[in-house]
C-alpha cells in the first residue's frame, strides 16, 4: 500500500470497489482534467472546483466504474432495473406484462430480473395473467431453472420477433399468424442501456478506444473481461458495456487481482526499444491518435512525442504511420529483398494457423513474422514489389481478434491505398493482397493461397 499524500494504489472514476487492502480514492468523471503516464505510474490532473484548486493524483491503476444511462422505451412503463415491489406484491389482478429485447437484445442479467419479477408476481397471485415478451432468453447462473419454473407456473412467453408488437401508454398489441392480443396491465420493460454521460470526454482524456456504442471497451477477445486497450486502466459496469451486468462478481474479482498485481511491479511487453527522434518529431500527434493502447504522450521538455515503455504493447503502428519518419525500433533490420512471393504474417493469427496446418502452406515463400501487420510500412510494400517479379501477401487478423484492436484495420487501409495507386499506374495490383484469418483457419490459409497464386499467375 502506498502511503504518501495523493499517491494511491488505484483511483476509481465513479464507484469504488470495497477492498481494504488497497489505498484508493475515487473521483467523478467530470472532475478529471487529464491523464499522463502509464501503468504503475499514472498522474491524474483534477479540475479546480468550488474551493478546491487544481490538483494531481498519482496512482498505479485506474478503474472506471460508472453507471449505465438507462432509458425506457416507453415513459409510462416501469423499469426491470427498478424497485417493482408495488407491482408484484399483494393480490394484484391486473395482467403483468414484461418486455425485454425491445428493440435491441437485452443482456442475460435483464432476463434474470424479468424471470424473477414474473415468479415473484406469481407467488403473490395465482390468478394473475403474466405475459413475458422477448426475442431471445439469455442464460446465466440459474436463468434456465427460473425460466422452466416460470413456464410451469403459467407465465405466458411470447417471442415478439415472430410477430408484431406495438406498445403505447394504453397497452400492448401483439399479432402473429395464430395469435392476436390486446392487453392492458402493469407494463414492465427492460431499459435501453447506453454509456454514462461524459464517456466520450473520458475516453479522450484517458486516450482509450471506445466501441461503436461508445463504451470504453472494444469488442475484442483480448480485452476480456475488464481490460481497456490501455494497460492499467480497467472498465466495469456502465463503462464496459451491457454484458458487464451478467458477470459482475467475476469481473470485480479479476479486477482486484489485477490491481494488486500491478503493485508488485509491471514488466514491459517486449524487449524492443522504440524511440522517437525529438529532432524529427513535428508533434503532429498522429502517433498518439493511432496508438490503440494509449502509449504515446507529449514530452513537454523535449517538445516531442514520447512512447511510454510499459504502456506500449508493441504493434509498431506508430512507426508505420509517423509522417515524419521519426520513430524507430531496435528490432527493425534492413531486409535483403528477394524476388518471389513474400508473405508478412501476424504472430497472433497466421503464424499460429501455419503451425497448425498439416503441411506448411507457406513453404518456399519468403515469410516475415510481425507482432501486428500494422508494422507494415507503405513504402516497404512497394520496395518489396519492386524487388524482381515478386508478390506481397499480408495476412492479418479479424478485427475482433486483433490484439492491437485497430492495428489490422489500419493495415488494411494502407494496403487499399497502395493498391489504388498501383491501379492508377496500370500496375497489376493482384500482386498485393491483404487477407484476414483467425489462428484456427489453417485450412482457409491453404485454400486462399492456392486461389491467390492462381489469380496472380493468370
Amino acid at each position, binding site marked *: 500500500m502506498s502511503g504518501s499524500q495523493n499517491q494511491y494504489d488505484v483511483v476509481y472514476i465513479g464507484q469504488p470497489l470495497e477492498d481494504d487492502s488497497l489505498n484508493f480514492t475515487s473521483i467523478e468523471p467530470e472532475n478529471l482534467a487529464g491523464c499522463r503516464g502509464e501503468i504503475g505510474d499514472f498522474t491524474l490532473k483534477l479540475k479546480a472546483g468550488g474551493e478546491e484548486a487544481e490538483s494531481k493524483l498519482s496512482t498505479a491503476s485506474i478503474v472506471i466504474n460508472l453507471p449505465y444511462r438507462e432509458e425506457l422505451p416507453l415513459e409510462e412503463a416501469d423499469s426491470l432495473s427498478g424497485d417493482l415491489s408495488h407491482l408484484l406484491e399483494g393480490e394484484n389482478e391486473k395482467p403483468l406484462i414484461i418486455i425485454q429485447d425491445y428493440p435491441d437484445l437485452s443482456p442475460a442479467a435483464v432476463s434474470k430480473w424479468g424471470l424473477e419479477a414474473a415468479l415473484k408476481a406469481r407467488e403473490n397471485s395465482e390468478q394473475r395473467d403474466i405475459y413475458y415478451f422477448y426475442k431471445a432468453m439469455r442464460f446465466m447462473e440459474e436463468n434456465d431453472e427460473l425460466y422452466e419454473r416460470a413456464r410451469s407456473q403459467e407465465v405466458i412467453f411470447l417471442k415478439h420477433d415472430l410477430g408484431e408488437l406495438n406498445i403505447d401508454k394504453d397497452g400492448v398489441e401483439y399479432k402473429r399468424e395464430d395469435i392476436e392480443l390486446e392487453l392492458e396491465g402493469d407494463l414492465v420493460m427492460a431499459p435501453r442501456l447506453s454509456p454514462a454521460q461524459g464517456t466520450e470526454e473520458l475516453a479522450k482524456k484517458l486516450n482509450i478506444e471506445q466501441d461503436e456504442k461508445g463504451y470504453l471497451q472494444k469488442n475484442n477477445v483480448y480485452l476480456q473481461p475488464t481490460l481497456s486497450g490501455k494497460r492499467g486502466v480497467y472498465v466495469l459496469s456502465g463503462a464496459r458495456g451491457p454484458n458487464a451486468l451478467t458477470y459482475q462478481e467475476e469481473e470485480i474479482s479479476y479486477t482486484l487481482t489485477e490491481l494488486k498485481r500491478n503493485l508488485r511491479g509491471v514488466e514491459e511487453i517486449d524487449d524492443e526499444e522504440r524511440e522517437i527522434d525529438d529532432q524529427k518529431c*513535428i508533434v503532429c500527434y498522429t502517433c498518439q491518435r493511432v496508438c490503440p493502447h494509449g502509449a504515446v504522450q507529449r514530452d513537454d521538455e523535449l517538445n516531442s512525442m514520447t512512447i511510454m515503455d510499459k504502456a506500449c504493447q508493441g504493434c509498431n503502428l506508430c512507426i508505420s504511420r509517423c*509522417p*515524419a519518419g521519426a520513430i524507430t525500433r531496435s528490432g527493425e533490420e534492413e531486409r535483403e529483398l528477394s524476388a518471389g512471393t513474400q508473405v508478412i504474417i501476424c504472430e497472433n493469427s497466421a503464424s499460429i494457423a501455419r503451425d497448425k496446418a498439416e503441411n506448411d502452406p507457406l513453404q518456399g515463400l519468403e515469410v516475415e513474422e510481425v507482432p501486428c501487420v500494422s508494422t507494415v510500412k507503405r513504402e516497404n510494400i512497394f520496395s518489396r*514489389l*519492386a524487388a524482381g517479379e515478386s508478390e506481397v501477401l499480408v495476412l492479418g487478423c479479424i478485427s475482433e481478434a486483433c490484439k492491437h484492436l485497430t492495428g489490422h484495420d489500419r493495415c488494411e487501409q494502407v494496403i487499399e491505398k497502395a493498391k489504388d495507386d498501383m491501379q492508377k499506374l496500370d500496375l497489376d495490383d493482384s500482386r498485393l493482397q491483404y487477407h484476414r484469418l483467425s489462428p484456427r483457419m489453417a485450412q482457409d490459409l491453404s485454400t486462399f493461397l492456392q486461389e491467390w497464386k492462381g489469380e496472380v499467375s493468370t
Partner: protein
Amino acid sequence: MIVGKRKDIQEIKDMLPEDMDDLLIVGCGTCVTVSLDGGEREAKSLRDLLTLYYRENGSEVDINADAIKRQCDDEFIDEIENEIEENDVVLSLACGVGVQHLAIRFPEQVILPGLNTTFYGRTSATGEWEEMCHGCGECVLDRFAGVCPVARCSKSLLNGPCGGSEDGKCEVDDDIDCGWELIYERASELDMLDRLLEYEPPKDWTTYRDGGVRSHKNPEFFGSGGE
C-alpha cells in the same frame, strides 16, 4: 496550418519528363507533414512506388527521397542544395509556397508540384481536415462569434444566410455545414445574437486577392537602424 493533398499518382507520373534519368522527391516537414501527405513518409513511399512503376515499364530512373523542415525558408533548403543540383528533376511535396520557393532558389532546375495545396484548416479528426480560413487579410472573427463567414459560408455572406440553408446544411453540398447556422448557434451560446443584427458594410476585399499580389514587412526589421 496549410493543408495539402498528394496529387493523384497518375497526374504525377504524367507530369514527370519521359527522358529524365534521376528524380529527387522532397518532402516538407511542417504543415503538409501534419496533414499526412507531404512529409518524409510520403516522399519515401512515392519514391518506392515510382521506382516500381519505372522498373515494371523497363526504364531505369534513379529516384531519391528526402525531407527538410520547411521548404519556404532558405536555411533549410541549404541542407539539400547539392542533392537538388545533382538531380534532373525535383518533385516537391510542399505546399505551393514551398514549390515556388525552391524554384526561386534554383531557377534553372525543373521543380514540379506533387501536392495540391487545399486550404488553411484544422485537424477535425484523425486523417481529416476542415477549411477554416481564406487568409483574407482582415480578420472579422470578433464580429461573428468566432466563426468565419468568409471561409465557412460557401458564399462568404456577411449579413446572414442565403435562402439555401436547410437543416443546418449548405445548398452547395449536403456534407457542408451552413456557416451561418454555426455563427447563429455560437452567438446564441455566447449571448451575443444582438451583434448579428448590426449591418455589416461591404468588406474591403483589397486586403484579399482583389488588391493584387500581397506582401508585408515587419517594421521591427526595417527602417532607420535596419536594412
